[in-house]
C-alpha cells in the first residue's frame, strides 16, 4: 500500500467514527490591565469565535503564525484557560463551565504535550515521579507496580528504563519531549493536545518525535489536536487542518485538499511562503505586505483584509463566516 492510499484509507475510516470534541463559537479574551487598581482596560482577543470538531482517532492540525491564537485555543479546550464565550463539548458533555474538582476529574481524559521540552518538565522532579504524578493524582497505586508500569511506558516512548531515576536536565531536548509524551500518556487519555511539540527541536530529532506520535496514535487509538506553525509538519501529522489567523479559523480542510487547493488567500500565501528544500520546485510566491494587526485591536470585518491581496470593499465591513464550500472544506472568505 502506498502512503497515499494509506492516507485516503484513513480518512475514509475516520468519517465513520464518533465526534470526540466539539468546539462551538469559542472565544478566549485576555484582559489587559492598567492603572493603580489594575482595572481591565481592554481585551486581547486571542481566540475570537472558533468552531470545529474532532472525531475519535483523528488528528486535527491547527496552523498559523505566532499570535494567531492556536495555542490559546488548545489551552482553552483543555480548560487551562477560561473561555470567555462559546462551548466545548467533550464526548457530548459540556466542559466549558465546569471547575474545581469536577474539572480536575474531567482532565483525566485530555492531556497535553508542550512546546518547550526544557520548561515543561519540573526540574526538581525525578523522571519517574513526573510520569507517575498524573496517575497518583487520580488513583492510589502500589508503588512497585506503578514503577513497572512507568518503566514500560518509558520504553514505549523510546527511553531506557533507567531514565526513571534520572532528572530532566540529564536529557536532550528530544528525549525530554519523549518524557513529556509519556506523562501525557500515563492517564491513557482520549485526547492529546500537542502544542508545537517539535518546534524547539532539531530536524533529525523532530522526525523522531513526529514518528513516535504517529506510532502511539495507532497503538493507543489517540485523538490529536496538533498545533504548529510549520505547515509541512502539520500536513505530515494531520488528517484535517485548520488555518488560523488573528484568533479566527479561516479555513478547515483535509490535509490533501488544503495543500492542493488552498482557498483562503491567507492559506495560499502561507503555503507559497514555505521554502521548499527542493530546487526543482520554483514556486510563485505571494509575499504579504505588512504585519499581523494587534489582537487587542483587530480590524473590523475580515481579520485578514488589511493584508489580503484580494481584498475588496466588503471585506472591511463584514466578517465572513466559516462555511463549507466543498465537501469537508470550510473557508471563511467572501470569495466563496
Amino acid at each position, binding site marked *: 500500500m502506498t502512503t*497515499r492510499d494509506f492516507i485516503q484509507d484513513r480518512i475514509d475510516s475516520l468519517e465513520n467514527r464518533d465526534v470526540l470534541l466539539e468546539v462551538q463559537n469559542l472565544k478566549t479574551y485576555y484582559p489587559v490591565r492598567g492603572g493603580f487598581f489594575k482595572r481591565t482596560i481592554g481585551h486581547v482577543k486571542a481566540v475570537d469565535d472558533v468552531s470545529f470538531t474532532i472525531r475519535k482517532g483523528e488528528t486535527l492540525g491547527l496552523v498559523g503564525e505566532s499570535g494567531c491564537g492556536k495555542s490559546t485555543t488548545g489551552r482553552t479546550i483543555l480548560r487551562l484557560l477560561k473561555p470567555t464565550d462559546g462551548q466545548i463539548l467533550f464526548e457530548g458533555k459540556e466542559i466549558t463551565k465546569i471547575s474545581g474538582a469536577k474539572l480536575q476529574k474531567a482532565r483525566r481524559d485530555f492531556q497535553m504535550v508542550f512546546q518547550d521540552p526544557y520548561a515543561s518538565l519540573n526540574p526538581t522532579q525525578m523522571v519517574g515521579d513526573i510520569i507517575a504524578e498524573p496517575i497518583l493524582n487520580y488513583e492510589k497505586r502500589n508503588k512497585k507496580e506503578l514503577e513497572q508500569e512507568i518503566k514500560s511506558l518509558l520504553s514505549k516512548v523510546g527511553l531506557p528504563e533507567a531514565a526513571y531515576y534520572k532528572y530532566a536536565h540529564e536529557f536532550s531536548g528530544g528525549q525530554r519531549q519523549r518524557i513529556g509524551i509519556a506523562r501525557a500518556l500515563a492517564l491513557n487519555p482520549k485526547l492529546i493536545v500537542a502544542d508545537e511539540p517539535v518546534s524547539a527541536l532539531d530536524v*533529525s530529532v523532530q*522526525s523522531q518525535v513526529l514518528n513516535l506520535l504517529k506510532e502511539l496514535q495507532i497503538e493507543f487509538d489517540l485523538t490529536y489536536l496538533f498545533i504548529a506553525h510549520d505547515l509541512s509538519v502539520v500536513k505530515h501529522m494531520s488528517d484535517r487542518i485548520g488555518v488560523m489567523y488573528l484568533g479566527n479559523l479561516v479555513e478547515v480542510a483535509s490535509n490533501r485538499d488544503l495543500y492542493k487547493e488552498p482557498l483562503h488567500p491567507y492559506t495560499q500565501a502561507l503555503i507559497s511562503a*514555505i521554502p*521548499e528544500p527542493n*530546487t526543482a*520546485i520554483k514556486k510563485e510566491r505571494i509575499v504579504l505586505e505588512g504585519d499581523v494587526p494587534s489582537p487587542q485591536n483587530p480590524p473590523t470585518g475580515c481579520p485578514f483584509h488589511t493584508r489580503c491581496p484580494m481584498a475588496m470593499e466588503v471585506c472591511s465591513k463584514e466578517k465572513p463566516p466559516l462555511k463549507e464550500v466543498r465537501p469537508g472544506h470550510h473557508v471563511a472568505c467572501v470569495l466563496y
Partner: protein
Amino acid sequence: MSAKNTSFTQTPLLQVENLQTGFKIDGDFFNAVEGVSFEVKRKQIVGVVGESGCGKSVMSLSIMQLLPTGIGKIRGGEVKFEGENISKLSDKKMNNIRGKDISMIFQEPMTSLNPVFTIGYQIEEVILNHEKISKKEARLRSVSLLKSVGIPRADKIVDEYPHQLSGGMRQRVMIAMAIACQPKLLIADEPTTALDVTVQAQILDLLKGIQEANDMAIILITHDLGVVAEICDEVLVMYAGKIVEKATVDELFNNPKHPYTDLLMKAIPRMDEDVEVLATIDGLVPSVMNMPEVGCRFANRCPSAMPECLTVTPRLGEVAAHHEAACLLYDESWPEGTKPYREGASMA
C-alpha cells in the same frame, strides 16, 4: 567599489582555510570548529546548514572575530578577506573591517538591537564608525536606508525604539544597519529563524534583492534546508564542527552524497510529497568535550558506517562536479580492493 576591486577579480572574496575555533569549558579549550575550509566568491550566496551545535554560528563569529572574549578563540587556520589574512588583526584594525567590509545580522532581531537607543542612533553609529560625515548627513542616510529595506514611515521610525517595531521590521532595521556601509560580504546568522513564515518570505526576498542591488556576497547560516534551497548558490553542510559536504545548491538537493545530508533531507516532512514515516538519525552529536580524535564524527549515528569509519578520518574530497563530501564511501584514496560497498548509504 574601486579600481582596486577589479584587480582582485580572480581572488575569492573570502577564503577560510583550516579554521579551528576553540571554546573554553572548565578551563580547557575544545574545538567547536575543526579545520573548516571554504571560500566565498563575490556576489555569491553561500548557505551553511547544520543542526544546532554543529559549529556554524561559531564559524561565522570567527570570521568576524566576534567570539566572546576570553571564552572563544581562533586556534588555527586563516581567514583571508580579499587576500589579506584578517584572523590575526588587532581589535582596532578589525573594527575598520567590521560593519564596513563585512557585516553581520543575527537571529534575534529584538535582542540584537540595543533597546535603549533609537533606531536612528543605531544606524547612524555604524556610518559614523566608518565614515567622516556629519551627524545630520548620517541621519539622512539612515532614513534612506530604512526606506531601501522597505520600512514605511522611515522618517518617523528613525526616532523610535526597537521595542516599538515588529519582529520583521526589526530584522529589516538590522539589515539596513548591515548594508549601511555597502559591505562586500554579509554574514546572516539564522536571519529568519525567529520570524513567521510569511515574514520570513519577505526578508528572504529583501536579502536577495539587496544582494543583487549591492553586488554583495552573503553567507547565510541556517538550519532550514528550505531556505537554502530558496536563495543559495552554494551550500556547506556542517556536522560536529566540520564541513561534511559542499556543493552547489542544485547538486546538493538532487544528489546528496554524505549520509548525514541525505538523512537530514529525508527527516523533514515535505509539502510536496506524503511520507508516512520520516527518516530519523539515531543517537546524539558527540560532545565537544569528547569528540573522537580520529574517524568520522558521524560514524556512531551513521547507518552506512563501516568499522574503518572509526579509525580513518575522512577528508573532504570531490565526489562529483562542484560537489565535495567527507565520507569514506567516496574516498578515492581508499586502498583498492578494500573499498567498502555502499549499499544502505541511503535509506529506503
